[in-house]
């Protein structure tokens, strides 16, 4: 039978004008490149390079770990709440930020191993409802598109630190990135949902070099200069598994049911389509920090960083067909550390605070997204092995997205348990 075929295609991408969103930043590229900070770093602006955990030590900077007196097992738990449009829409979540083992060796070397989420792809974007006229069928359809995703990338990081000279030291971190995320696209047409699901699988290896020098001096102020460079040993690649779309007749959200439920029948669909290397993220990052010891235990901390992605197709991974191509950040903080052997309870505390500004640039739109905020926190030591609990809080406002004035509040709680490893005990 000879057939003439007329096709009416819904170009629904245009319908994705944002009516409501959750963490829109997480929907760009593979997600927001912001680092996961330990609780002490979050309280100090947040910054990861400069010492904020103890005097001379940053949990997130391995070049400082040799200054620790004990081996530490650290766990950090955090949460984030974002308010859009003056609190009319509020979203929040809590998550494990990292678990880390740090072993200082003879005050010269250090080894560490940490695992934690690297990138978060939790997002939910619901488009506005549109009435679409179809001239060929001669009817009008009520159409709404929504996309959501969850999952992300996990990071496993072994690190080693070693001295270069009596005043300089260096550390190397290898960052193994792996994990997966799920994306769900749902198009509602006249009340019937058409759903497609896909899974992204990530794999990549980064290397980060850390450098610290105590050579700088200004008058009587002790100064520490910190530098880090991050590059890809194996750029992060994304493989995608795309499942067949289905008509969700039983409104379960999943492709299930028998012949009279979801369409097409689950037993009559081909295998999912696997696409390799649909996107590549090839980042480079430079961080520079200065730690000025202005008074005993009191430090001014200043850090700047520039991150950018040299990969050329990372935007195709995103439901928004865009990605964050660069992130610039500056921060200024103040930290008053506890006494080594405190006699008063207030001297057992570390006090931290700071300001920060970030600017993200989008690849396709060239749009700049600004985020400004402040943070504060404290930590308290306890026990003979300098165990420590840290609290960090951060409040910032993000502008420049389709949804302006997004207020972001974050908290982070870290507990670090010390023990004696590789340290010679005194004979009794």
């Amino acid at each position: 039978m000879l057939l003439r075929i007329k096709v009416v295609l819904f170009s629904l991408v245009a319908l994705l004008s944002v009516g409501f969103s959750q963490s829109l930043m997480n929907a760009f590229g593979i997600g927001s490149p912001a680092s996961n900070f330990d609780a002490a770093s979050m309280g100090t602006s947040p910054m990861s390079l400069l010492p904020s955990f103890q005097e001379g030590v940053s949990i997130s900077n391995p070049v400082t770990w040799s200054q620790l007196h004990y081996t530490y097992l650290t766990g950090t738990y955090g949460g984030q709440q974002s308010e859009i449009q003056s609190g009319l829409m509020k979203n929040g979540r809590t998550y494990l930020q990292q678990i880390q083992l740090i072993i200082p060796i003879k005050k010269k070397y250090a080894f560490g191993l940490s695992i934690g989420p690297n990138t978060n792809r939790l997002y939910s974007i619901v488009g506005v409802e549109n009435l679409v006229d179809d001239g060929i069928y001669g009817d009008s359809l009520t159409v709404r598109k929504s996309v959501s995703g969850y999952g992300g990338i996990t990071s496993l990081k072994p690190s080693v630190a070693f001295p270069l000279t009596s005043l300089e030291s260096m550390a190397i971190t290898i960052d193994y990135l792996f994990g997966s995320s799920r994306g769900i696209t749902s198009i509602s047409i006249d009340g019937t949902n058409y759903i497609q699901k896909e899974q992204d699988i990530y794999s990549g290896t980064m290397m980060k070099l850390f450098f610290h020098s105590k050579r700088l001096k200004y008058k009587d102020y002790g100064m520490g200069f910190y530098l880090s460079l991050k590059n890809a040993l194996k750029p992060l690649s994304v493989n995608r598994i795309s499942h067949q779309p289905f008509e969700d007749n039983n409104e379960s959200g999943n492709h299930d049911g028998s012949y009279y439920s979801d369409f097409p029948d689950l037993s009559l669909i081909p295998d999912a389509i696997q696409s390799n290397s649909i996107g590549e993220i090839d980042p480079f990052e430079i961080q520079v920090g200065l730690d000025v010891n202005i008074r005993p235990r009191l430090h001014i901390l200043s850090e700047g960083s520039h991150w950018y992605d040299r990969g050329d197709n990372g935007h195709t991974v995103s439901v928004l067909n865009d990605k964050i191509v660069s992130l610039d950040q500056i921060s200024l903080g103040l930290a008053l550390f506890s006494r080594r052997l405190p006699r008063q309870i207030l001297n057992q505390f570390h006090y931290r605070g700071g300001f920060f500004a970030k600017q993200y640039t989008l690849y396709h739109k060239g749009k700049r997204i600004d985020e400004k905020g402040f943070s504060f926190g404290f930590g308290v030591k306890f026990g003979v092995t300098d165990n420590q609990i840290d609290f960090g809080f951060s409040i910032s406002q993000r502008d420049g997205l389709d949804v302006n004035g997004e207020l972001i509040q974050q908290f982070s709680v870290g507990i670090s348990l010390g023990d004696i490893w590789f340290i010679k005990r005194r004979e009794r």
Partner: protein
Amino acid sequence: MLPDNIIFKDADLYLKCDTTINSFKVFAYPFKDSISINDIDLFSVEQMDTTALEFIGATSSTVDSLLILNVRDFVNYIYLNQLTHYELQLSSSTGNDPFSTLTFINAGPFKPYIIMRYVATN
């Protein structure tokens, strides 16, 4: 060429016909095997392919002398490579008036055609 990962929302087969009957039913079903057009007897019935669907469409009237059959499922399973043959056989419902005639026209400007709507999520 249709893109990957689409789902058909609608697909209707339009057949031009000539009839004075007001009420009737016509079924269509996919073949299990291909047949030669020259071998078809007037009342021969081929075996149905019930892999994906038993029959397609049931109509009771015509619009502007066009019989419209809903072939959405049929087209979608062809797209998904779940049917081995793409022919359809039409069959009169046993409930129809046996003394009435329905003539399908497949000539000149009155070729059968399909109008489809599909949903692309990308």
